[in-house]
């Protein structure tokens, strides 16, 4: 019961903070079309050069409109750095002394931030999807997409949180961030839609959890899915999420043994 109260309090507090910060809202609204602008011209050029004769313009532009919307839903890197700073400086002692669950507070901060993001950027994304890709998905498909996108985003959050926690062992996590970010960009489909890769690559992508973060939800939106396939994807997302959260718990427990209130 206490845990739920803390979670609710943390969510409400962060929601107020997110709404109060007008400049953050503005940068989100600006950042999204700015990235889309770059991708738009790149792919226009790629398609004009007939680099992928089978790829339709509406699919590729729609793909990036939605995938960029998901990619910058939350500042994952910043969160990872914040977790690092809180551990390195010893600030997490405040949480430990008051018996406040550090992970839950961070999760609620994430939930509040994406709530504001969804409220402010979704209309822009939906309009852009209509204008740029001329795609307006039906309600069932939209709901399936939103559910998969939500779970995919939580999975991403969990991984980035774990990278933050690694500070207990490495003291600095910038290098790991650079490494993982590059890996995630390719394997999740945020750099290129996974279907443009050769078949051997796609077999590897299917085994790994990263495609569930971006590619799977977006692909469902444009190519549709069966109920059974949808349920399999949801199951896989929950499975990987449970695995990453278990890993987070192990690192946290082991990390606290190394931690002194003065930091690491």
């Amino acid at each position, binding site marked *: 019961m206490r845990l739920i109260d803390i979670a609710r309090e943390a969510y409400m507090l962060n929601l107020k903070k997110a709404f109060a*910060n*007008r*400049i*953050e809202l503005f*940068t*989100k609204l*600006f*950042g999204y079309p*700015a*990235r889309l602008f*770059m991708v738009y*011209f*790149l792919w*226009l*050029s*790629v398609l004009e*050069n*007939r*680099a*992928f*004769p089978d790829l339709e313009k509406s699919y590729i532009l729609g793909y990036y409109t939605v995938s960029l919307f998901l990619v*910058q839903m939350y*500042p994952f890197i*910043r969160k990872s750095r914040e977790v690092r700073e809180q551990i390195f400086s010893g600030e997490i002692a405040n949480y430990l002394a008051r018996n406040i669950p550090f992970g839950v507070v961070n999760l609620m901060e994430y939930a509040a931030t994406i709530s504001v993001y969804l409220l402010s950027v979704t209309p822009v994304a939906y309009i852009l999807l209509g204008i740029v890709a001329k795609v307006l998905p039906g309600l069932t498909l939209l709901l399936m997409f939103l559910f998969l996108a939500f779970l995919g985003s939580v999975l991403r959050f969990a991984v980035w949180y774990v990278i933050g926690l690694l500070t207990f062992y*490495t*003291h*600095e*996590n*910038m*290098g*790991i*961030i*650079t*490494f*993982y*970010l*590059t*890996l995630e*960009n*390719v394997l999740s489909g945020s*750099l*290129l839609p996974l279907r*443009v*890769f050769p078949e051997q690559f796609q077999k590897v992508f299917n085994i790994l959890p990263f495609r569930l973060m971006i590619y799977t939800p977006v692909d469902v939106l444009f190519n549709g899915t069966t109920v059974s396939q949808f349920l399999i994807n949801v199951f896989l997302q929950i499975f990987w999420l449970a695995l990453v959260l278990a890993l987070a718990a192990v690192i946290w427990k082991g990390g606290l043994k190394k931690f002194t209130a003065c930091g690491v």
Partner: protein
Amino acid sequence: MREIRKHFELMKIGIGLSFRRLLYFRASTLFSILGNALFLLVNILFWRVIYTNIEVFNGWTIGQMYLFTAFSEFFHVFTMMFFPVAGKLWRLIYTGRLDTYLTKPVEPYVLMNILNIRMENIFNAVPSVLWIFILINFYKLRLDILSFLMALLFNLLAVIVYSLIQMSTSTASFWFGKITAIDELSDSLVMLVNYPHTIFPLYIRILMITILPFGYASTIPALIALKMGYIGTLPSLILGAIFTIVLWLSIFKLLWKLGMKRYESYGG
């Protein structure tokens, strides 16, 4: 002369600190180098996939495009070396830590940048340098030292202007307080470095070498090194680069001056 000597002394301290960091954060440095090697590999893979069915993309052969990726990587490495915290200037303002800097006989933003030089990031350039050697041998790219150095100079210039843009956006903190998401804004802009500007219509290309510096970050360096033509002659590009640097220096100085008038020490 005294001013130069003062900055030189500070530089020595900054470089000393960065090598101490290298020794302390060894694991992270190693991951950083691996991360950069991976970033380069991913870029190569990206272009490999794009070139699956074509031989020339917007006038670039695959070998030339690979060289472009190396210059794009140099831009990121130089940024990480010389101005890794330029975009974090707002933190000094927001937290009021600027007070400490104001008591010192150097401009706060100069001191902040010098003390945060990360020379250890020079190792991140190793994969790109090796990649260029591979390109020269396997793709028979002809590069001469003078053009290459000129290309690197443009690269560095873009880094300086980009840091001025980051510091200019950071001054928004004088008016709006905490602006954590400002990094996202500069991250969005830095994407302009990763793809050749020949994909843009002419008016955007001109914008990128006059008002914004991103044309000088990777497209122009690669074209200069490859001795390929672009908009205008070399002297006109140099003039454009000087204009960009003066423009952003003036914008930053103006914003800083106006911001300092609003600054109230505690919490900016």
